[in-house]
Structure formats: structure tokens, C-alpha cells
């Protein structure tokens, strides 16, 4: 994981000094740039720190970090992936109605929001009820 957290660490390492230089150069009277650059530091730091904290919990070296690693060393269950689902399409349609509603009239937004709730619940619960819930 070293390559990953270092990669995002570079973003953080670049923006922190740049934020400080910017603040110093503007006599700390112009907060827009300083805060913006500081949050860019946060952008890199957040991912870098997370990957670093995760990496030190994982046992041993990953196969992809090992020059002599084999593809089959990466086998295992990666998670659950839905083979197909209609719910994302339904949710996208409902969202489109909501946005259209902002332009056309709030009555349409309310219809879109109602359909959105149905689609969202349908999507989140698709594999967590009935025959999947064993």
C-alpha cells in the first residue's frame, strides 16, 4: 500500500507549504486562497492517512507489491456485486423529475421525491430482504 498513500501524500505535501506561502505573501488578509489551498491539503491528506492507517492493519505484503507475485494470490471474495438491477435507472429517473420540478414547478418535484424514496429503498434493500436475507 506504500505506493498509494505516498501518491496522495504528495498532494498533501505540496499544498500545505503552498497554503502557508500564500497566506504569508498576502499578509494573511486574503482568506479565500489560504482556506482553499488548506482544504486541497486536506483532500490529499484524508486519502493518504486513510490508506496508511489501513495498510498498517493489513497482514503482510500485498501480491501486487511483490515483484514475484502471482495473479492467483489475489483470489478471494472481493465483496458482493449485483449482477443486474433496475433500481439505479428508477432512481436516475426520479432525480431527473426532481430537477425538472425545480424548473417547472414544485408539484413535479414532490412527485419526483416520492418516486425517489421508492427507488432508493428498492435499491438499498434489493439484496437485503426475502431470499437474499438468509
Amino acid at each position, binding site marked *: *500500500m506504500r505506493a498509494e498513500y505516498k501518491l496522495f501524500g504528495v498532494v498533501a505535501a505540496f499544498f500545505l507549504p503552498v497554503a502557508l506561502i500564500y497566506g504569508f505573501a498576502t499578509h494573511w488578509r*486574503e*482568506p*479565500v486562497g489560504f*482556506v*482553499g489551498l488548506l*482544504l*486541497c491539503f*486536506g*483532500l*490529499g491528506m*484524508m*486519502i493518504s492517512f*486513510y*490508506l496508511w*492507517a*489501513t*495498510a498498517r*492493519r*493489513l*497482514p*503482510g*505484503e*500485498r*501480491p501486487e507489491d511483490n515483484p514475484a507475485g502471482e495473479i492467483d*494470490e*489475489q*483470489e*478471494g*471474495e*472481493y*465483496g*458482493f456485486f449485483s449482477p443486474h438491477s433496475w433500481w439505479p435507472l428508477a432512481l436516475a429517473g426520479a432525480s431527473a423529475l426532481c430537477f425538472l420540478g425545480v424548473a417547472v414547478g414544485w408539484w413535479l418535484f414532490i412527485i419526483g421525491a416520492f418516486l425517489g424514496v421508492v427507488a*432508493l*429503498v428498492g435499491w*438499498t*434493500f434489493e*439484496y*437485503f*430482504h426475502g431470499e*437474499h*436475507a*438468509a
Partner: protein
Amino acid sequence: MCRVANVAIMALVATASALYSDSAVPGSVPGHGPVTRPNMVAVGTIVWLSSELMFFAGLFAMYFTIRSIDPGLWKEKTAILDVPYAAANTLILVISSVWCQLGVHQAEHGKASRTGKLWEVGSWGMREWYVVTYIFGAVFVSGQVLEYATLVSEGISISADAYGSVFYLTTGFHALHVTGGLIAFLLIIGRTFTTRHYSHAQAAGAVVTSYYWHFVDVVWIALFATIYLLQ
């Protein structure tokens, strides 16, 4: 104000210690994915949250830019703000993060719901802690609605002047995020009722929802400091 800061630090420490404690393996819910790599849902959530940070960076840039253009307006309007009220509301949101972390602890141990009676807090599972988190979050949003109502009655509205626009856009977008988090909590809690077995996928969902909640909490502390303390 000092108390708010203290509790904020406590919440951050709680989150940080959860990242380090042996029981909590961030991003690698046991048995979910190969042991040599982090959980994809968790990493994806962190990357998405970093893009959310940029969204809020835009809002901060807007706030500071317009404030620098019209400092007189700021002086006049920020005097109307009820800082102690907002501080108390902030405290509620920060405390909700502590409850959320306790729920995560249970989720990581695969404990979906309580094993004892409702008043036996020690036996609570993820569900009970998330319900408490939800209540605190809901109180926060309701508190903000009440604050909006008061401010509108005192002449600060989104279309009245630049200050109103900036105030409602920044705090409003944050409140929408909190509301989104509340909906996520409902879905996460709801899934524990429709399944017989608390799966790793469910625990991963609970954990990443907590990441989002802590993120929104930290953003609010920054917004609170900017709008109410720094003014």
C-alpha cells in the same frame, strides 16, 4: 465555546482511536474481501468524501470572497446571529458523532441489536446506537430550522442581501448533507430488520455511513467557526 471545542476534540479522538484500536480494522471488515487489501466500499467512500471536501471548499471560497467585498454588511448582519444557540446545536451534532462511533464498534463486532433490555445500555447493538445518533442529528436539523425561522423574522432571508444568500447557502447545503446522513441511517437501521443474519456487507454499510457522519460533523465545526466565531 471552550466546551464545544473540547467535545469536538473528544469526538475526533474517539474516531482516531477507533481507527487504531485492534478490534477496529478500518476498511477491512473481517471476511469481506481478500485479507491483503482494504474494503472497496470503505476506500471508495473516503475518496468520495475528499471530493465533498472540495465542494465545501467552494462554499468557503464564496463566503470569504463576498465578505471581503462588503465588510460593512457583515458587521451589521452578524450582530443578529445567536451564537450561544448555535453553539449548543453544534454540541448536539458533535455528541451524535460519539454515539455513532459506539454503534460502529458494535457493527464491527457483528452485533446488530441489543441482547438485553432497552435500559441496559451496555447490551446495545449497532441499531440502538444508530437510533440515538439519528435522534441527535434530527434535533440538530430541527434546531437549524428554528434558527432559520427566527433569522427570517429578523430580516435575514436568502434573497434579501448578499449576507443572507451566503449564510443560507453554506449552512443550508450542510443541513442537506446532514439530512442525507439521517436518511442513510434509516436505511442502515432498516436493513437490520429485513435480514435474519448481520452480514459483513451490512457492517461495511454501517461503517461507511459513520465515515460520512464524522465528515459532515467536522465540516460543521469549520462552518460554525467561520460563520459564528470568526464572523
